[in-house]
């Protein structure tokens, strides 16, 4: 088929389309879904028993804020990457990774310090917190995939990694709100590292879930 014939076919196929919302507005919609998931997760798994006093813990509040920042920055970047030419600065995609990186670095430093003191604790303590991250992350992840598929992502893997990162951060926030364990090793292994695992799923699934949707070989 030559280009003129292709143009004829495309013209014959044109229909009115509903424009996508702006990436920031789509991210706000996603955020609403994620917050409902978090609320549902906390209701299901239970609120941590020190919830009334934990708000005065700077580390807990700082971690929470960084997780919210990770969620927001990750999905805004993902939805921008799913619109051709909308990503203004390439480094913007690194901001959510940096936010989570700060959380991981602080926790790793605390784990090392605790290990030097000889009270790092058991790595297998309360392994089930990983379920909270996975179960609560599923709904926002599915919504992120659906929203990305409705657009056109030139870089499917990157886009899905960011969508999954935001979803994993929602799961981690749930774990933070429902698990009363303060041990840095536990928080690092079973609240935060699963977020990295969920994001890594984006690399594995990016081509399968997104590439075909955008019509690429």
């Amino acid at each position, binding site marked *: 088929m030559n280009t003129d014939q292709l143009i004829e076919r495309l013209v014959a196929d044109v229909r009115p*389309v509903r424009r996508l919302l702006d990436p920031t507005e789509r991210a706000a919609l996603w955020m609403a879904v994620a917050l409902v998931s978090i609320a549902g997760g906390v209701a299901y798994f239970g609120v941590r028993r020190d919830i009334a006093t934990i708000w005065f813990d700077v580390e807990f509040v700082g971690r929470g804020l960084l997780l919210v920042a990770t969620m927001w920055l990750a999905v805004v970047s993902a939805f921008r990457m*799913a619109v*051709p*030419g909308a990503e*203004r600065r*390439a480094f913007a995609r690194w901001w959510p990774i940096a936010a989570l990186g700060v959380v991981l670095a602080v926790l790793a430093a605390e784990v090392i310090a605790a290990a030097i003191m000889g009270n790092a604790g058991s790595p297998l303590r309360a392994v089930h917190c990983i379920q909270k991250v996975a179960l609560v992350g599923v709904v926002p992840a599915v919504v992120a995939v659906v929203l990305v598929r409705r657009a*056109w992502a030139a870089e499917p893997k990157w886009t899905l990694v960011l969508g999954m990162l935001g979803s994993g951060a929602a799961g981690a926030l749930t774990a933070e709100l429902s698990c009363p364990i303060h041990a840095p090793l536990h928080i690092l292994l079973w609240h935060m590292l699963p977020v990295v695992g969920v994001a890594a799923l984006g690399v594995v699934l990016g081509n399968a879930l997104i590439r075909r949707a955008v019509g690429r070989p």
Partner: protein
Amino acid sequence: MTPEQERQATGWMTSAQQGDARAYEALLMLLARDARGFVGRRVGFADWGEDVVQEALLTVHRALRTYDPQRPFGPWFYAIVNSRLVDALRARRRQTSREVVDDEVVATHAAEAPSPAAQHLQDRLAEAVACLPRVQREVVSLLKYEELSVRDVASRLGMTEGAVKATAHRGYKVLRRLVGETGEHRPTY
């Protein structure tokens, strides 16, 4: 695409999103011509260039709903063409790495096509330019492929001349790293 064409394309695109077939046809004709120029300036004569143009048009069709008339049309369209060109160059690289060179075919076509080494370098350079961050890519493309002056590029992209020079410098540095600087294949940017 000139600023006038861009305004025209934005209007046609807005109508096409409402299902206007005539506006859509005019838009696709313009885009086909523009994509052909975009690809041709980067990879020269290439028998697969028209495939990239067609892929770009198909993608415009699929991505119709993602265009927001509040945003400039050029970056939206060139991001699509650029992405399609990168895909084609990567596919071509995979293919050529598996190909066995036929000396007779090479000799027959030697007079009309660039040497394999020159074509290879041109492809690598095009792929490297396509992989630059958006602003660097636009600055380098306008300076080197469209041959605009620094002042024209600055006015087209809404940047200062100093910022254009600095961005171009950073882009060239990345290109040198990506393409390499070996002997006679040293790029002349």
